[in-house]
Structure formats: C-alpha cells, structure tokens
C-alpha cells in the first residue's frame, strides 16, 4: 500500500536549515490503521504532507500502490490524490459557502470518473450520522458535526487510503471517542488509515503505531492483536 524509503525533508528558515523529516523508512499494508504519534514539531504532519504528495520530499522515495509519487507531475499527483487519498484535517476544512452535502460532493469535481455522486454523498452522510444536517452550512455545525462531514467528504471518491492529521485535536472527549469509533468502523470495512496525533490514548483504536521524534521514526509498536491498546514499554509520548 505505502512504502516510504529513506525520505527526508529539509526546510530553510530565517535562522537555520531544519531537517523536519530525517531518513524515515516505514510501510503500511492495505487494510491497516496506522497511528503516528509525536509531539508538536516532531515532523509527523510534514510526513503526512509528503505521503499525500502535497509536499515533495527532499530525498527518498514514496510509493503508493506501487506508484512512486516523489517525481510525479503536479497534475498526475493531484489526480492520484483525488482518486486514492481521502483527507481529514485537524480543523474541519469545510468550504463555508456550500452546504454539508455539497462539501461531501466537492472532491467529485476533481475526480469526475470516480464513484462519487449525490447518492453516495447522501449515503456517506447517513453513515457518519449527518443525514439530518445535509443542507446545513458549515457555520451552523458543531466541531464534531463538521468533522463527521469532513470524514464523509474524504470517503466520497472511495479512496484506498485515508489520511487524518490530528482529527480529534479540537474535540471534547466524548466527540473524540465517537470520531475514533467511526474511523475504526471504516478501517474494519477495509479502508487503510494513516493518522497522526499527539494523543497516546488513541492507540487503542489502531492496528499499528509509529512514533516520531525530531524528524526520526524512532520506534514502532506493531499491535498484532488489533484493537488492543498499544503500549510502548517504558515510553511516554508526552515527554
């Protein structure tokens, strides 16, 4: 599904050059729910940006379903993103000028040959428990509702990979549980998910956990028995 081979990402800042991601290697198999834990500034979001093709690695190779996305043209990678990758951001990322249903349908504009349709959008809203608010504009939705709509939007083109960047970062505990259970259900239905977070409590929902520190993937804890809380022996991710 995903192969990451020796990728690095360097940024030049006013003060100095920063190596945000430093020689990271890992793989995600189809159907996995992978969590990447790390503190702010650890490089986990930069890694997600590169996995999605929105940020190009300085060095290294990223393969998605066998395709090396590191050197693809912008148009090709945009097409791949529209077809194969669903995105859920920390904030909802909904477009304020269109309704919840239209937001869900938005990615169909970029993937006209995909399975996305109004019917599928309605079904997805029902699936995430938002069918009653289909015609609501984002400004009238709660954070949890917006997140549900964003998840439905991420699934509209039936992507093989769902990328979630701190999807529960701005939610209360109850809503966080609801959203994580939704992700877990989606994973059980076959969607591959890669999620980054700083919250170690979320490892209970995933099949594999990685941890990033200062740009390096320092360890991984493979949860062979899925849905079991993954505990890193002697490690505290909030350090």
């Amino acid at each position: 599904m995903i192969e990451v081979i020796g990728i690095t990402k360097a940024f030049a800042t006013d003060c100095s050059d920063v190596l945000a991601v430093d020689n990271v290697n890992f793989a995600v198999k189809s159907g996995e729910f992978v969590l990447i834990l790390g503190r702010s500034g650890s490089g986990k979001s930069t890694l997600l940006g590169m996995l999605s093709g929105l940020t190009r690695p300085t060095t290294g190779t990223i393969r998605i379903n066998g395709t090396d996305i590191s050197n693809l043209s912008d148009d090709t990678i945009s097409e791949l993103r529209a077809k194969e990758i669903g995105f859920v951001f920390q904030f909802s990322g909904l477009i304020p000028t269109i309704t919840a249903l239209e937001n869900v349908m938005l990615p169909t504009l970029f993937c006209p040959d995909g399975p996305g349709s109004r019917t599928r959008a309605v079904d997805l809203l029902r699936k995430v428990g938002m069918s009653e608010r289909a015609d609501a504009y984002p400004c009238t939705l709660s954070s949890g509702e917006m997140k549900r709509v964003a998840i439905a939007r991420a699934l509209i083109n039936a992507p093989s990979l769902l990328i979630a960047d701190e999807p529960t970062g701005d939610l209360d505990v109850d809503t966080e549980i609801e959203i994580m259970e939704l992700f877990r259900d989606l994973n059980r239905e076959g969607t591959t998910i890669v999620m980054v977070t700083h919250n170690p409590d979320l490892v209970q929902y995933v099949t594999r956990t990685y941890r990033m520190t200062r740009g390096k993937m320092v360890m991984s804890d493979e949860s062979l028995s899925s849905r079991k809380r993954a505990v890193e022996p002697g490690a505290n991710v909030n350090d």
Partner: protein
Amino acid sequence: MTKPDLHFFELVLRNIANRPYRNIATIFAIAIIAATLFSAQYLIGGAQESLDAGISRMGADILVVPEEYNKQAETIILMGEPTTFFFKDSGFEQISRIPGVAKASPQIYVGTLSGQACCSAPVQIIAIDPSHDFTVSAWLKENPGVTLGKNDIIVGSQILGDIGSDLLFYGHTFHIVGRLDRTGMGIDCSVFSRIEDAYVMADESGIKAVQKLTIPKGRVSAVLVKVDPAASPVAVASEIRRQIPGTKTITPNGLLNAVSGQLGAVTRLLYGSMLAVTAIAIPLLGFISAMVAHERRREVAILRALGATKSYVIWLMLAESFSIAVLGGLIGIGTAVVILMGFQDFISLSLKIPLIVPSPMTLLVDGCSTLFLCIAIGGISSLYPAMLINRSEPYETIRKGES
C-alpha cells in the same frame, strides 16, 4: 453512476455571493469602465451611421452653397436648425454644364418661425424642383403610393403631425403626405415642399403671416449635385468652385470631417476617462484580488488537498473574476444603452452631432468589444494573485491555518 450535481460554475457563483459588498464594488467599477467605453463607441457609430443615412437620403455627392453660408448649410444638413439664405445670383444652369456633373437639383431653404400667426413650428423648409430633384423623388420611388402635389409636404421623422394632417407655415397651409425614416440628421427636422408652393407661401406671407417672407425669384439656396460614376467628386467640386466664384462645396467626406471634429473632443474625453478609470481599476482590482487570494489561501490549499490541480485553482479564480467582469460589463452596457437611447436627442443637440441608434450589428460588435475589455481587465487583475496563491505549499498553508 448518478452525475454529480455540484458543478464548477456553481462553486464560482457561491464564492462570488459569499463576498457581496466587495464584489458589488468591483462590479460597479467595471460597470463604469464598460459604460464609458460603450458610450464612446455608440456615439461614434451612431454619428457615422446617421451621416451615412442622411447622405444616402440626400443622394448627392456634392452640395453647392453660397460661400458665406457654408456653416449654416452644414448646420441645416447636420442638425436641421432653421435658416434662410440664397445665392446672390443663380448659378444653377452653369453648374449643370460643368463636366462630370450628372444631375443637379436646386433647393430653396426657408427657416420657419414659431407662433400661431405664422407657423405651426420652427422647422427647415426645403423646397425642391420636382423636375430636377433626386432626393425626394428617390424616396417617392420607394413609396409608390405617395405623390408630392400642390401644397403637399413630406416631413422628417421628428416633425409633429400625422400623415393627412395640415401644417401652417407663413400663413400657408400644407398637407402632410409622407414621413421620411429617421436619419439623426437635419432632414429629420425638415419638411420638403415644391418650389412653386414655396413661392406662393412667400407671396401670401405679407397678408397671412406676421412677418413677410421674401424668396427672390430665380435664386436658390443650394444645388445638390450627383457626379458621373466615372468622375471624381473632389475634382468636380473643385471645378465648380473655380467656375462659379462665391460658392462653397460640401461633400460627404467634408461633413464627416466636420462631425469627426465635433465628436473628437467628446470621444477624447470619453476615451481619456475610460483610460483613467481603467488605469485606476486594474491595480485596484488587482489589490482586491490579492486580498481575496490571501484570505482564501487555506480554502485553496484544501481544494488542492482534495485533488484540485493548480490549473483548476487558477481557472476557478479567473472564472470568478470573469463572471464579475461580465456582470459589471453587462450592467455598464445596459445602463449606457438606456441613457444614450433615452437622452438621444438631448445628446445630439448638446454635442451638435447627428445621431441615430446604431444598427443591431454595430451595437453587438460594440457590446462584445466592451465585454471583452472588461473580461481582459478582470483577467489581468486576478491572474497574478491566482498564480501567486498556487506557489505556496498547500500543506504548510493548511497547517498554518490550524495553529
């Protein structure tokens, strides 16, 4: 698969509607540019077509007038301001004999007065000799049911009075038998009668009118000349001036130059205003576009994350600008058309130019070129911000928006 019913243009319209005040201001600025440009084109086209129609109606290549009444003659032709003048001597027969002259038709110009005791209205009477005329006779050929008999008149489009009704000039009653099409020129405010009726009118005026009218026998006000197809109107006009001293010749080109001179100042003002508005509008609209683009960085980044290509984002932003430009252009053109048509006579009198509503084709071409300019302004002002917004790294923008 059901076809998705969220479309590109729906997204464009929603984005425009989301910033109503700023977009209304932009539309207003573009409407001013469009109205100014369209007005300039309308006036030039309207004057040109008016001249063409008027000259075509006259059917003459050269108008020979007394040298000292050259300006008045031009005013009669262009604006129809009532004037009375005559040659000191009749050169009509001499003009007919000049090489290159195919036809010559004498005309007598009499300006009527206002007041119930004299005339129904102040108009220009153009008295013709039916045996030599080719102005009214051409119209009569197009309208076979009409004849210009004793005391009959054919009136210009602006003359009040129905066909079949009577008009009083210098106490003499004339009967309206026909009405000419609108030309926008002096003919619209003129009435055509026979020369012998004009003489009778003058003879009776001492008794019937407050002011006596004198038309010297054997003297005419102007001679219309049709030139042989093989001859040059310029050469024939020159020969007429040489052989008959004290005459001035007016040609369609000369009239056009006179009108162009009058139009020139107006069009320079209009084009100058348009250039000034455009020069201010492009950077202003560019600044507004840049502001909007800056505000929408995260929205654009999200679209990119969802699979939009860079070109899609540029087209989206350009389509918004084009839509605003087209809307502003249409409002400007529509407003200009309403004002120009509603106040056409006032504009014609104020600017002292002949004016008719240009043909639908001219209006279409003027409208399209105006819209094109508006679209170009919209495109130029938003292209750079649209390209600039695409240069930023989407994921960085999204992350910055979260913090």
